C-alpha cells in the first residue's frame, strides 16, 4: 500500500513545495517499507522528482486542468488513490492544493490534517505533529482509517536529495461536468514577484513606516534579498498596501526561513501568523515592543536610518558572495 504524493506544478514547472512533499513522501514510504508514487498534472519534466527519491511518477496530461481547477484536481486525485490503493496521501500547503485536498478528503471521507511539521512520530498508528491554535501550540494527531491525508507545512521539512531513476507513466482520468462547475474567468497575479507562500525570505512593514510613500524601503530591501513583501493588518486596512500582503492570524500565514519585521509592534495576532518562520529579525524604535521577545535578532533603531544602511551593506555582501 504505497504513499501517494501530489506534486504541484505551475505552467509545467514544479513548485518548490513539490520537491518538499516529494522528499517527505519518499522518507515516509521508506519508514513504512513501501513505495512512494507521485502524481503530477501537466508537468514538463515529471522525472525531475527522481532527485527526491520518487521512482514512479504518474503524469496526467489533462487539458481541462491546464488552468487550476480544485474540484477537477480532487476528482483526478481520487481516481489515482483508488487505482494505486494508496495508504497515505501527502499534499502541500499552497492555497490551491489545500483547496483541492479539502474536497478530496470529503470525497474519500478520509482523515485529513494540515500544517504537519515533521515525519510521523509513529506509523502504526499513524501519528503526526502539526501546529494548531495559530502557531500557539502543537497537536499530535492520530489519523485513523485509510487512506489518510497529510498536508505538510511549507518550509517545515525542506528537501532531501536522494537521486533515483524515476519511471514516468501517463495517467488518464474521467471527469463529470460537476467537476467543472466553478469556472475561472480572470487571474490577476504579478508574475514577476515572489509570493509570500513560496518565498524563502519575507520583508514585512508595519504602521511604524508612517505611510505608503515610504514603502520603497520595504521594496528595496526585498529586492536585494529576493524576498516577498508583506505587511501588518492595519497597514492593509488603511489601504497603504493591498490586502493580499496582510499576514497574521487573520491574514496569510508565513513560514519562511527569514522574516524581517520593520516597524511592527508584534501583537499576538500578528505573531500567531508569522511565528512558524525560522529566523525572525525585528527593527523597531521601541525596545519594549513585544516583537523583540519573539525574535532571534533585533535592532532597536529608526527604520528610516537602519533600513537604507542595511540595503547598502547587503548589496556589498551580495556583490562579494555572489
Amino acid at each position, binding site marked *: 500500500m504505497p504513499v501517494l504524493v501530489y506534486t504541484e506544478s505551475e505552467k509545467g514547472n514544479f513548485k518548490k513545495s513539490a520537491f518538499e512533499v516529494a522528499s517527505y513522501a519518499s522518507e515516509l514510504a521508506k519508514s513504512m517499507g513501501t513505495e512512494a508514487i507521485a502524481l503530477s498534472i501537466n508537468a514538463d519534466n515529471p522525472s525531475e522528482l527522481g532527485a527526491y527519491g520518487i521512482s514512479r511518477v504518474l503524469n496526467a496530461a489533462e487539458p481541462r486542468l491546464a488552468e487550476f481547477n480544485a474540484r477537477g484536481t480532487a476528482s483526478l486525485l481520487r481516481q489515482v488513490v483508488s487505482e494505486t490503493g494508496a495508504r497515505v496521501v501527502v499534499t502541500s500547503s499552497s492555497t490551491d492544493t489545500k483547496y483541492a485536498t479539502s474536497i478530496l478528503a470529503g470525497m474519500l471521507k478520509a482523515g*485529513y490534517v494540515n500544517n504537519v511539521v515533521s515525519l510521523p512520530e509513529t506509523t502504526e498508528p499513524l501519528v503526526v505533529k502539526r501546529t494548531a491554535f495559530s502557531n500557539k501550540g502543537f*497537536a499530535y494527531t492520530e489519523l485513523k482509517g485509510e487512506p489518510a491525508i497529510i498536508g505538510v507545512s511549507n518550509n517545515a521539512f525542506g528537501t532531501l536529495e536522494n537521486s533515483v531513476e524515476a519511471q514516468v507513466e501517463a495517467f488518464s482520468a474521467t471527469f463529470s461536468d460537476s467537476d467543472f462547475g466553478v469556472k475561472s*474567468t480572470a487571474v490577476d497575479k504579478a508574475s514577476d*514577484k515572489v509570493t509570500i507562500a513560496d518565498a524563502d525570505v519575507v520583508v514585512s512593514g508595519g504602521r511604524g513606516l508612517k505611510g505608503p510613500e515610504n514603502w520603497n524601503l520595504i521594496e528595496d530591501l526585498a529586492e536585494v534579498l529576493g524576498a516577498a513583501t508583506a505587511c501588518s493588518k492595519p497597514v492593509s486596512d488603511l489601504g497603504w498596501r493591498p490586502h493580499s500582503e496582510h499576514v497574521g492570524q*487573520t*491574514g496569510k500565514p508565513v513560514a519562511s526561513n527569514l522574516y524581517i519585521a520593520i516597524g511592527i509592534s508584534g501583537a499576538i*495576532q500578528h505573531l500567531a501568523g508569522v*511565528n512558524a518562520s525560522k529566523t525572525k529579525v525585528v527593527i523597531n524604535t521601541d525596545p519594549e515592543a513585544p516583537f523583540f521577545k519573539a525574535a532571534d535578532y*533585533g535592532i532597536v533603531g529608526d527604520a528610516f*536610518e537602519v533600513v537604507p544602511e542595511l540595503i547598502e551593506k547587503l548589496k556589498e555582501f551580495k556583490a562579494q558572495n555572489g
Partner: protein
Amino acid sequence: MKILVCISNVPDTTSKINFTSDNTAFDTTGVQFVINPNDEFGLTRAMWFKEKQGATVHVATVGTASVEPTIRKSLAIGADEGIRIDAEPVDGIFVARQLAEIVQKGGYDLIIAGRESIDYNGGMVPGMMSAMLDMNFVNTCISLEIEDNKATAVREIDGGKETLETTLPLIIGGQKGLVEESDLRIPNMRGIMMARQKKLTVVPPVEAADGTLDVRFEKPAPKGAVKLIDPENIDELIELLHKEAKVI
C-alpha cells in the same frame, strides 16, 4: 435565497493557549470564546444579502451547550434563526457530515463557512461538505456577488486573485475581504433583545465516523533571548544571518 452560515466557536484571538495538566485537551479556563473571525466576515456578507436581496439567514454550529452564547451573538448581529447540532466537534469530517445533513434538510442555496477556524486550523470543513453534497465550492473567497442563481466570486490565490463564475447551490470558504473590517457589526441592545426571541433549534447529531484524533498537545519550546545588534554595527547582523542562522 436561503443562506446557512456555519459558525465555529473559537478562543478570542488574544487568548493565551494552555493545555490541561496531562496535555490531552485545550484548557478553556478563563478563555473568552468568539465567532471565528473568518465566519464573522461571512456572516456580515450574509447580512448584506438579507438587507439588499431579501435573503433568509440561518446560522449553525456543531457544539455542546457552551457554544450557545456565540450563536446568540450571531442572532443579535441579525441572523434569523440558529441551529445547534448537539455534539462535540470531534474532527473535520465529523463536523462536515453534521453540517451537510442540516444543508440537505434545510434546502439552502448558499452555504457560507470560513477558510479556516483559528483554533484547530483545519481548513477543511467547507471543502469536505462540498464533496458530500456535490455542490460547487469556492475557497479563500474575498468577494461574492449573486444574481438569480449565478454567482461571481473572487478568491485569493498565492500572489494575487482569481475571478470565478459558478451557480447556486454554492459553498464558500470565506475570509477578510468578503466585507471590510469597518463593516463588521457589534450587536446593539435592540439586536440583543431581539435575539432572545429568535428560534434556536437544538438537533441531535447523525451517525458519522471521525477520521482524526488529537492525542496530545504541546506548547512551543520557550524562545531564547533575542540577540540585540547595535544600529551602528549592521555588518554584525549580516554576519549573523550568513554564518549563524545561514539564511542569506
